[in-house]
């Protein structure tokens, strides 16, 4: 694994759909680099032979039966929709 201690804040912000000012970008640059350096320390540890942790809680197989539960009504589901039509959530046209 390559380990850059610098981080592209602009790229990370774009992935998270965040719009940062130049000042914010500079500030987060410093903070995030600190975090990355901290992770680098952990990466230096020898973890050979240690089973990867899937979850902080040591439990597994917490599942449910395949039994139906009531759904919301269409009215309830759409209650917060800014725009709706014919029972659908209407959103700006998606262009792929």
């Amino acid at each position: 694994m390559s380990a850059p201690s610098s981080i592209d804040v602009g790229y990370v912000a774009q992935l998270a759909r965040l719009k940062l000012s130049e000042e914010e970008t500079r500030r987060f640059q410093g903070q995030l680099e600190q975090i990355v350096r901290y992770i680098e320390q952990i990466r230096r540890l020898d973890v050979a032979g240690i089973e990867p942790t899937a979850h902080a809680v040591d439990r597994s197989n917490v599942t449910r039966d395949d039994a139906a539960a009531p759904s919301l009504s269409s009215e309830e589901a759409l209650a917060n929709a800014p725009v709706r039509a014919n029972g659908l959530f209407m959103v700006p046209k998606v262009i792929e």
Partner: protein
Amino acid sequence: MNYEAVIGLEVHVQLRTRTKMFCGCENEFGAAPNTRTCPVCLGLPGALPTPNHAAIHLVALTGLMLGCEIAPRCKFDRKSYFYPDMPKNYQISQYDLPTCRGGGLEIMRESYPKDAQKKVVAGRYIRLVRIHLEEDVAKSFHFETASGIDFNRAGTPLMEIVTMPDLRSPEEAFAFLSTLKLVLLYGGVSDADMEKGQLRCDCNVSVRPVGQEELGTKVEIKNMNSISGVRRALAYEIERQTEMLRGGGRLTQETRRWDEAAGATFAMRGKEMAHDYRYFPEPDLLPVDTAAWLDDVRRRVPELPLARKRRFVEMLKVSDSNAGVLVADCALADWFEKAVKDVTNTQGVANLVVNDLLRELGAAGKGVTESPVAPEALGALVALTDAGRISSSQAKEVFVEMFRTGRAAAEIVTERGLEQVSDAGAIGKLCDEVLEGNAPIVVQIRAGNAKAVGNLVGQVMKLSKGKANPAMVNAVLHRKLGL
């Protein structure tokens, strides 16, 4: 220079469960929009998912059917991206610890397109990379100025089967998908109805000069929703890529979309926009240990179509082509097995099912489960033929009547006086009559033309109005002619 295609598939399969993957909303196609939703599948803040164990079992069952290694422990991860069909901005999927790895599927000969039977390569085995479990996203409808979203589909358990790049032609991809679909139906894992979007497929395809080891530049064709569409899209894309290389051009790695109406693929998004999904373990879900229940799932593994076909051919003496037709429809093969239960002439039953039953069902627009003739009743008809009471051509006639009226074979035979004459005395008399009237033929036969006996057998049959037992007529004539 000659080029060959290298194809790998990512097949998405909606699982047949009563409820969704992480909530109790019904997993049902065709309900009014946004009437099968709750805070979990709408992605409302604070809602917590709980996995449906039936869905996890179905993925393991698929893995067992396809010879995969089932992970002792698997887990769920978040795949982050932004799209209106996924309002919590991540899809729950499996990244580095999928439920199944490896395995593969042998393509059945019958699965190739009808017009490409000459391209069949026997015994092609397509290896799998992995099978993982995720949630389906909502369904989008695109209008002139806006898009509409229906969340009924959001959260449907969705299994992704990823193949190795082992496929070499559009026909092979078509056949692989057809065999896979049949296996999924046999296992009751999915209804796999492509028209309902229950089986969808992304195709990765590249071309390279024949003999070259290194892979060419890969193009992904997204979201194909019919098996014949996959074949057409791949044929187009292979041609496009080959022409490009022949003309000295270069290919770019990209995602393309198949436009069925235009019969062409179009670029969707370039590499500069490559997605970065930032996978990380789903903190809301605990890992799954499969050992706790895997033996229960193992008991649910059915006999697969290819094994069933081999059994029909080897144990039940059914012809290869008849066996292929029978196993291509699980319900039809079940029906056949019921019909042969107390019958020794299993071949005779297979012939009637494949030729006569399917013809009548097709004409009536019915499925085998709606057949007016019960499987046991067809078995009884074949037993009458075996006992020599009616000939096989009469059996076909009786079958049509059984299908029309739903009545038993024996009843129809008696009523129509179709009973075959197997009485030695009666047949002897008929033979004598024919021998007397055909002195010239008898002379020929005595002179060594043994084949001419056939002519006499035909005449005796005609004289008996088709009722004489043909095997007996043949034997009696031979005896009387001293042959």
